[in-house]
């Protein structure tokens, strides 16, 4: 499964979710695939997508919140998973795209995650293909989804074209104004 296929199917499965994407190629992939006000593209701060999404989920427990993390950024901040498990936001989906490498910086190896199932999330699933993504459960407490993916073959998507402050303003307006992440 490619990263783009996985993102597309996640956006379909969790339609209307507010989405927070980790820095590097993942944010560019999301931006290229579906640029919506309910999407927040992290441009730096590796490892901070999950805590930021936790803050969003605490403020908006009614809303579906989807985090797109890489295996490198996920393992960088396993501590954040303890916070998510402890705070237990009811509708947070934490998706980890696992290509086994820091692809954005030149495909260096990542430290393997020791065990996705032992991190205290209410539910943990592995979805290796689109069919598995299509039948992922609705979150009932924090949901962790492990997505084995292949490295990108056509290189990265272009950089995100709007200034960071504009991205934040759009996301914030969407969060404060809508029940779900509205489609532009």
């Amino acid at each position, binding site marked *: 499964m490619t990263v783009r296929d996985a993102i597309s199917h996640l956006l379909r499965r969790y339609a209307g979710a507010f989405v*927070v994407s980790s820095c590097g190629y993942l944010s560019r992939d999301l931006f290229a695939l579906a640029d919506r006000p309910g999407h*927040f593209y*992290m*441009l*730096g*701060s590796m*490892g*901070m*997508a*999950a*805590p*930021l*999404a*936790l*803050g*969003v*989920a*605490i*403020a*908006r427990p009614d809303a579906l919140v989807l985090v797109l993390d890489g295996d490198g950024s996920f393992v960088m*901040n396993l*501590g*954040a998973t*303890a*916070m998510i498990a*402890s*705070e237990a936001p009811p509708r947070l989906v934490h998706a980890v795209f696992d290509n086994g490498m820091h692809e954005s910086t030149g495909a260096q190896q990542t430290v393997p995650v020791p065990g996705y199932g032992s991190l205290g999330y209410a539910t943990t699933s592995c979805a290796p293909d689109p069919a598995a993504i299509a039948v992922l459960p609705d979150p009932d407490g924090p949901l962790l989804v492990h997505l084995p993916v292949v490295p990108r073959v056509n290189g990265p998507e272009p950089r995100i074209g709007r200034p*960071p*402050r504009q*991205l*934040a*303003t759009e*996301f*914030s307006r969407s*969060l*404060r104004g809508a029940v779900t992440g509205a489609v532009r």
Partner: protein
Amino acid sequence: MSAADQLVDALAGEGYGYFTGVPCSLLKNVFAILERGASGRYIPAVREDSAVGVAAGLQLAGQRCAVLMQNSGLGYCLNPLLSLSALYGLPLLLIVSWRGAHGNDAPEHEAIGERLTNILSAAGVPHRTLFEGSVPAVVRECSTLAVEAEGPAALLVSDVL
């Protein structure tokens, strides 16, 4: 009313309904109040950078969240302070204990303690010290600094509250 109570009351008065961070002994009475939960929701953080991340998410959702930490934690969160809070223009009030402010603290607090204001200035983080004026006035001033800076501002606490 204790200084810790005054600080938490002042924060609540400025609209802070959420608190996160990593404790310091200088702030132990503040954290004790926050843990009781009567003044807002306290979200214990594993590390200071994650606290800044959580506060950014809350801020984007229209909520005010103060981040409390020891000055030793400043280094852990320097990157998200600059490339998250400041980059995206998100106001953020930091309550930072200042271990080593008086020069006779434990040795591990000296390195950052003696450089604290220089580090903040170099990072472009405006800062004030508690007890420069009345607690509510300084909290209000520092919170306003964060809003005006559209990024982090730090309120330094050099003695136990």
